[in-house]
Each structure stands twice: as structure tokens, then as C-alpha cells.
């Protein structure tokens, strides 16, 4: 049955985000177009953090006193909410990390060092963020493993024409982002996962740009691991998630050692704790779990189909308007194949200059390589400018961006 996306009014939802009311400097309102880097936070998240610290703050687990029990219930409550948000089978599969980067590193260190041997093949794509490249490069260097790369087409999509040849080399793991943080491309991860599994490989999906912006159900996605960050989905910084299949996580050795990840410690050895605590050494990000739980409730209230539909509308409008501006070139696929991200260049003006001039008018975009240097090399670009959108962006934000770009052109014309 086709589901019809519930709708919400982005203009009304802006009132939920206190920061959107600020002026960057007197008389210059903020136009925030950098949500792919980090999202803004709704009041319900700020209040949840504040309430936790004012009312319940204590360390978690093993506490007998009331506050410790409350803090534990709140921390684990955040995990339960995340579990439901991504439709995980159990909270044992939801490991809290610092961010998506740490989640990927956890897999590369724990699973990777136990399972990757000299000559093994690791696959990733040419559109990955550095966080889904460098941990695998480090692992490959250490183990003498080989790397195979799924290339990117001129149009900014994965070129799967050589995938069968790559899979014929029997890779151990295939690492792919569900949505590019530069091009906005939404990749066919379910298809890639099915083919990779048929070849005997595991699949890790970098979901840092997808979980915040579209519905993700780990039971139908087909991945074995997914990684995402709380701060890109209305939650606080300092908390991220690794979801993994329970059977795999059970087999994996611990990542970091310390308190909480152990069941029993002897002077010369230890027994690891159960999932998910086995991978959570030391005092975790307690308030951040509470905040992430509030963020997940907020997003669920809007409906992720509706969030995606809204961003599709905004990015469609943004691409139309950007293409009106002489000298602007937008990278990546058509609006109906991407999320709310538009990376572009403006002829004869360096992206940092574009961003600095826009900033004078309160318009926050990002300029640089967006932690995807190899992808920029692919297009022969040192850097791009990137506008990225979220549930609180309105068409007027795009209009401000376009007006700003004409100003840039005038300045450098």
C-alpha cells in the first residue's frame, strides 16, 4: 500500500528552533543552509538536556540511589527510542558511540582486526566521506589487505557496471554511504547489499546523511552495520550510533577497554559485558542519549516520509533557482534522485570567497571539500560550495541564497 506523506509546515516548525530567530549581527537574520554539517536543535531537545542536568544527573549503571536509577532509565530510554526509530530488533543492537565516525572505526577495529587478513579485499565507493575511507585504509595498511573501489559517474551516481567483477574477488566487506554529503545522491544500498551478500561480503552503510533525512528501517535496508550521528538529526553533539546485527556484534571482540564494558575483571584478565555495553567503555554520553531520544520523538512526530518529501521540494526549488544564475554549476543527480544537498561552483570565484561574502548577509553555507577529497578529485575540483537543507528550511532561504550569489557575482564581476 502506498503511504501518503503527512505534511507539516516548515514555516511553522521554524518556531521550534530558537536559534533560527537570532540575528547573525544586528539587523541580519540567520539563513541556515548547513544542516548536512550539523542540524539545529529544537526546543524540546534543549529542554530535555536541561531537565536531565537540573533534575536527574548521576552516573549510570550499578547505582543504588534514586538519581542513578533515574539517569540509567533515561540513558537506556534514549536507546529504546533509537531502536524504534530505525526498527532494530533489540536494544542490544544499538551501540552508542561519539558519532558516525567512531561507529565506523569501531567496526574497522573490532570486526576488521579479527576478520581481515593479508590479501583480503575491502570495497568502498569513490563518493565516501573521509570517515568511511580512512578507517579502512588504516586497516588495509595494517593487515596487508587490498582495496577495491566502486567508481562514480560524471552525473554523480555510483557506477555499478563493474560491481560483479569487484564481487568476484570475494571481498569481506562492502562500505557505502546511503546518501552522499556532497552530491546528495541517494544510493541503491539495498540492491548493493543483496549482491554483496550473495558474494559472501558484509555490508556497512554510512547512514550519517540518511537517518536524519529519510525513513530508514534496518530490517529492510539489507545492511549488516549502519553508522549515524545524533547531531545531524536535531540531537546533541557527542553521541552517535552503531547498529549491527546481533549475531555479528556478539562475535566481535571489545573495542575500547575500561569501566562498563566488563562483566568481571581480574588482575590479569577480564570477561566482557553483554551487548550493548560490551562496546561502551567508560561513562557514556548520558545527557546526549536523553537529548537524542527527544530528537527522535520530534522527528517521529513529523514523520520521516514528510521530512523527506519536504526536503525534496526545497532541493527541487533550489536546483531550479541555482541553474538560473549564470556561471553556477551544480554537481550531482536530478532532484528526484537526491536528498536536500546542493554542491555547486560559481565560475571564477573560489568557494571560500562565495561563503565569506554570503556570510555578510547571514547566509550560512559550507565551502571546502566537505571531507570528501577523493570525490572532489574525481571532478577535478579543489573545493565546492554547499547548501544543505532540513525540515526548517523554507523557499525564502533559497531566495536569499540566490540574491547573495548575484551579490558575489557583482563583487567579483
Amino acid at each position, binding site marked *: 500500500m502506498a503511504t501518503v506523506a503527512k505534511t507539516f509546515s516548515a514555516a511553522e516548525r521554524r518556531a521550534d528552533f530558537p536559534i533560527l530567530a537570532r540575528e547573525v549581527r544586528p539587523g541580519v537574520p540567520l539563513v541556515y543552509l548547513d544542516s548536512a554539517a550539523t542540524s539545529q536543535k529544537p526546543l524540546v531537545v534543549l529542554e530535555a538536556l536541561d531537565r536531565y542536568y537540573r533534575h536527574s544527573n548521576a552516573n549510570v549503571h550499578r547505582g543504588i540511589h534514586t538519581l542513578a536509577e533515574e539517569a540509567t532509565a533515561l540513558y537506556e530510554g534514549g536507546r529504546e527510542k533509537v531502536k524504534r526509530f530505525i526498527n532494530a530488533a533489540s536494544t542490544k543492537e544499538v551501540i552508542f558511540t561519539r558519532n558516525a565516525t567512531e561507529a565506523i572505526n569501531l567496526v574497522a577495529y573490532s570486526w576488521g582486526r579479527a576478520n581481515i587478513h593479508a590479501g583480503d579485499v575491502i570495497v568502498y565507493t569513490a563518493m565516501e566521506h573521509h570517515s568511511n575511507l580512512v578507517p579502512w585504509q588504516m586497516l588495509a595498511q595494517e593487515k596487508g589487505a587490498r582495496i577495491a573501489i566502486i567508481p562514480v559517474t560524471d552525473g554523480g551516481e555510483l557506477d555499478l557496471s563493474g560491481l560483479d567483477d569487484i564481487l568476484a574477488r570475494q571481498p569481506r566487506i562492502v562500505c557505502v554511504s546511503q546518501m552522499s554529503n556532497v552530491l546528495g545522491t541517494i544510493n541503491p544500498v539495498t540492491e548493493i547489499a543483496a549482491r554483496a551478500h550473495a558474494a559472501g561480503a558484509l555490508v556497512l552503510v554510512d547512514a550519517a546523511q540518511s537517518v536524519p533525512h529519510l525513513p530508514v528501517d534496518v530490517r529492510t535496508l539489507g545492511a549488516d552495520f549502519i553508522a549515524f550521528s545524533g547531531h545531524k538529526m536535531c540531537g546533541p553533539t557527542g553521541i552517535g550510533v552503531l547498529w549491527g546485527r546481533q549475531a555479528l556484534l556478539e562475535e566481535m571482540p571489545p573495542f575500547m577497554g575500561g569501566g562498563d564494558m566488563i562483566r568481571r575483571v581480574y588482575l590479569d584478565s577480564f570477561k566482557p559485558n553483554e551487548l550493548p555495553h560490551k562496546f561502551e567503555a567508560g561513562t557514556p554520553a548520558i545527557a546526549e542519549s536523553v537529548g537524542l531520544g527527544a530528537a527522535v520523538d520530534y522527528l517521529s512526530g513529523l514523520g520521516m516520509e514528510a521530512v523527506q518529501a519536504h526536503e525534496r521540494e526545497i532541493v527541487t526549488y533550489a536546483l531550479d533557482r541555482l541553474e538560473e544564475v549564470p556561471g553556477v554549476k551544480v554537481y550531482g543527480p536530478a532532484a528526484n534522485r537526491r536528498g536536500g544537498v546542493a554542491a555547486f561552483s560559481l565560475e571564477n570565484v*573560489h*568557494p*571560500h*570567497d562565495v561563503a*565569506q561574502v554570503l556570510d555578510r548577509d547571514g547566509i550560512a553555507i559550507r*565551502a*571546502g*571539500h566537505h571531507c570528501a*577529497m577523493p570525490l572532489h578529485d574525481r571532478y577535478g*575540483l*579543489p*573545493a565546492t560550495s554547499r547548501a544543505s537543507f532540513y525540515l526548517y528550511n523554507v523557499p525564502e532561504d533559497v531566495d536569499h541564497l540566490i540574491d547573495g550569489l548575484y551579490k558575489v557575482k557583482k*563583487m*567579483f564581476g
Partner: protein
Amino acid sequence: MPDRQEFIDFILDHYENPRHHGALDNPDVVMRGGNPGCGDIVTMYLKLGADERVEEVAFEGQGCTISQAAASIVTEKVLGKTLAEVTTLNHELVVEEMGREVVEHRIRCATLALNTVKAAGRKYHSGQATKSAAEAPVEDF
């Protein structure tokens, strides 16, 4: 002190009308500096006279306005100075000249050319100076 717009006009003037732009035919030292974070590159050429005084200077490069305008400004600063003087030049010199408010968040772009020319001086003193741009590797600053 000039206001923000005057600093911007000054920077744009150096960007659009760069001083000492191009290559030198027989330089005593060529140094290439890069800023991998944003892809700016400058190549500095120096020709030295008595006392290792900079008799001729030129630069080529590509990148953002700040990095290229700064290179133009730096050529004016080093001309006529001895290499010893060049290697003691301070970042503040460029930052103040270009306007702290305008360049404070882009210090790496603003100081790329100065870092490159100072490294050229050190390289010359070490006896390992490269005299051809084609042979000079891009060093990250």
C-alpha cells in the same frame, strides 16, 4: 584605520591587478606552497643580489581571493629585503595589512604566500634551493 569595505577594496585590487605576477627566467630559488584544505597554491620566485637582497620577485598561483591577493602583497613586502629579513617577517604584517576582520577566519589563506617565501629563504640557506618551478614540489603549509 581603514574600514571593512576599504580592506575589501584593497584585497580585490591586489587580486584583480596582482603586483609582480608571472615567472622569473633565472631565479635563485623557487618555492611552491599549497593549502590542501582549500586547494590554494602559490609559486614564489626570488632573484637575489649582493647580501642576499631580493632584487626581483614574482609569483604565480591559483586559489581564493585572499590567498592570491596576499601573494601580491607579500611580493611588495619582500622586495629589497635581505633573505635574513624575509625569514623573520611576521604573520601579523599580512593580517593587519589585509584587515584582521576580513581575514581572521582564513588565516591559512592569508599567510600561505608569506610562509612559502620564508620557506624559500630557509631552503636557499640550506643549499637545497630548487631553481625550476617544474621541479619544485608543492609543500603544505
